[in-house]
């Protein structure tokens, strides 16, 4: 990894590390404050045990992303708050479990001695049970904190920042260096957190420090707290709430290259009017973006008409005419969510069958209908989603009456390579993917209009246009500016050439005289 790649990003790396520490620290702290008393409470009431462990255990099995999406819907906020709640819930199990296990592990003989000398239950807990259970409880806290450091990387999906920001960006742009820039520090952080907690445990154990001279007393205890204090110093100072510049207009995006480009384009256009912009890019998918927009956490993001129709509106009617779909979603969005659709960018990022240019030429494939004679001898590579969805392969077979000889389920990122290497003959691509020009692939025209249109357009809160009328004018100029081919090329610049998104967008807008 080139040095300047890191030094350029050093300020952000520090910021993200601080955010990460705060997410982890606050959630582990809350989990300790809640989990230990809860563990003590349960240890007195054993009938509560299966109950609580069941409940906390179920929480633990909820996939992290689902949990974040659920909390987002529940409390209607993106950012730090739902992230901390989710992390706290995950941290609870090891802490409660170890507290109960530790307390139960104290020998009955010792408890009898304590009771026999006249300790009240509280004194017994404070003087005997908790000190004896401490190593086990501390181990639970350590587990919780380390888990927390790991899961906190996912918080970037809901705009809470942290080192996951790099990982997310790296995944969207298929840039391994960015992924490592997030992953390596977060792994090192996990190791350091584990060390810091072990150090506290050492400090609390007077006995282990007994023969260390000066370290046997208070200085030793203070020294043992130092590694943890370092974390507090780095993470503290309330940096979290000033993460990134605050702006008048908050722009979101989903977590893939095309969305980053479109959102950056909106941002640069708005900045050109003199307004400040807050970029809350790379949110974890359609639902997260939509919830955030509906709840006013962001002001706008680029969405696709087909996605809005199927995923958000869950519409029964599935018109195939692009204008009809656009009219339908903009009407429903305004009615149901008070959200406005601006004019589409122009391109349609829909499902599309793709073959290599040579194959298209050799077999004379231009339209999907041309596949009729060739399909039985072709090997197709589909995403598993396309194989299953009623508006995917099953519907396609009915509409066109075409069936492929063999179908393989492939990961989207592998599908294009499989086609390029000749392992499959045809794939179901996204029509604006940069690998279509990059790998010299040819798109077949959907002559029966089977696939719904997925035209991208900015969706924004109705209030934004009233508050900042100049935004409407600035964004109107983007309407119809990008056709399929242009979008492919923009994606190509960012994805294949690994250029900065902001730079690609600036160059494009300048080329258009904007």
């Amino acid at each position: 990894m080139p040095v300047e790649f890191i030094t350029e990003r050093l300020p952000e790396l520090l910021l993200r590390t601080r955010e990460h520490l705060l997410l982890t620290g606050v959630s582990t702290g809350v989990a300790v404050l809640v989990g230990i008393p809860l563990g003590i409470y349960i240890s007195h009431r054993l009938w509560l045990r299966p109950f609580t462990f069941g409940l906390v255990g179920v929480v633990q099995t909820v996939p992290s992303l689902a949990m974040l999406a659920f909390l987002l819907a529940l409390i209607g906020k993106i950012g730090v708050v739902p992230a901390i709640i989710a992390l706290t819930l995950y941290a609870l199990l090891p802490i409660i479990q170890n507290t109960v296990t530790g307390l139960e592990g104290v020998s009955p003989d010792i408890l009898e001695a304590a009771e026999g000398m006249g300790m009240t239950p509280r004194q017994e807990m404070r003087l005997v049970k908790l000190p004896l259970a401490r190593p086990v409880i501390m181990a639970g806290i350590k587990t919780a904190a380390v888990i927390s450091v790991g899961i906190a990387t996912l918080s970037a999906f809901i705009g809470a920042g942290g080192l996951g920001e790099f990982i997310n960006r790296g995944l969207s742009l298929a840039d391994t260096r960015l992924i490592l820039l997030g992953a390596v520090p977060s792994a090192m952080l996990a190791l350091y957190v584990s060390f810091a907690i072990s150090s506290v445990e050492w400090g609390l154990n007077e006995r282990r420090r007994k023969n260390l001279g000066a370290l046997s007393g208070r200085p030793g205890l203070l020294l043992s707290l130092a590694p943890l204090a370092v974390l507090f110093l780095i993470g503290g100072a309330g940096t979290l709430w000033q993460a990134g510049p605050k702006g008048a207009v908050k722009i979101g995006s989903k977590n893939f290259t095309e969305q980053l480009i479109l959102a950056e384009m909106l941002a640069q256009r708005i900045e050109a009017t003199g307004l400040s912009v807050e970029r809350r890019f790379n949110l974890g998918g359609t639902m997260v973006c939509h919830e955030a927009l509906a709840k006013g956490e962001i002001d706008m993001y680029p969405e696709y008409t087909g996605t809005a129709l199927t995923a958000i509106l869950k519409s029964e009617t599935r018109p195939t005419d692009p204008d009809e779909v656009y009219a339908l979603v903009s009407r429903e969005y305004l009615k149901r969510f008070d959200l406005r659709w601006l004019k589409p960018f122009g391109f349609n990022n829909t499902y599309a069958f793709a073959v290599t240019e040579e194959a298209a030429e050799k077999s004379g494939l231009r339209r999907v209908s041309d596949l009729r004679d060739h399909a039985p001898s072709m090997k197709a590579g589909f995403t598993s989603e396309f194989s299953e969805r009623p508006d995917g392969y099953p519907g396609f077979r009915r509409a066109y009456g075409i069936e492929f000889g063999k179908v393989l389920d492939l990961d989207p990122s592998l599908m294009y390579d499989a086609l390029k290497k000749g392992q499959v003959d045809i794939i179901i691509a996204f029509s604006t993917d940069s690998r279509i020009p990059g790998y010299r692939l040819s798109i077949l025209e959907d002559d029966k209009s089977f696939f719904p249109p997925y035209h991208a357009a900015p969706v924004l809160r109705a209030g934004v246009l009233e508050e900042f009328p100049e935004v409407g004018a600035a964004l109107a100029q983007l309407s119809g500016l990008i056709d399929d081919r242009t979008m492919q090329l923009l994606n190509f610049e960012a994805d294949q050439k690994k250029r900065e998104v902001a730079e690609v967008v600036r160059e494009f807008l300048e080329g258009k005289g904007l």
Partner: protein
Amino acid sequence: MEKAIELIDVRKHFNGTHAVRGVSFEVLDGETLVLLGSSGCGKTTILKMINRLIEPSSGVIRINGKDILGQDPIEVRRSIGYAIQGIGLFPHMSIADNVSVVLRLKGWPEDKKRDRTGEVLDMVGLEPETFGPRYPDELSGGQQQRAGVARALAADPAILLMDEPFGALDAVTRNVLQQELLKLKQTIKKTIVFVTHDIFEAFTLADRIAVLHEGRLQQIGTKEEIISAPKTEFVKDLLLRPIEQLKDFKEAH
């Protein structure tokens, strides 16, 4: 002499099994009473009912003439010293902390606590400077038991309950500690209830012995009374058993 402890028809059953079936006896002020019997005879249960670690199913227990069932169990326990077999010491506390823990519960000031701890450690033959800062597992079994006794004595209680405190020790150490307890008894003048299954230990330490079998009191009296006039078959057997064993041992050779 005053009655320090009094049990009247005390019974205890746990889920249908009768551990103690109507036992009555008295312990006089300053007297050492040994509860003697094999495991399951109810001797430990009786001891624990005296400091309310176990509640009797029926019957009356009085200390200094007052029914303890009407008192706060925490207060009852703090006024009684309690020493038990094996690892009754808190492993996470130094010996000094272990010994002074009752004083801490009673809210003694730091300096008085330190003085008293040194005093009782001296009393049981543990040099306070050397042993005070050590942890229980750094002590031999015998030293741990001495510390256990010191802890029971710390708050200077009038009554001391001891549940086989020397049970886990080797014969030589046990003997030394028994002799020291005898000497200590003379100087501290406490009422002691001592539980053991070892007839020789009972005879060594007791002013009077209460022989228990299957939850019933078989006989109570001085060792002379018991040896000269065993009241039941069980007591007779108990006295004869060591002689029989010795005989068997001779014949085998």
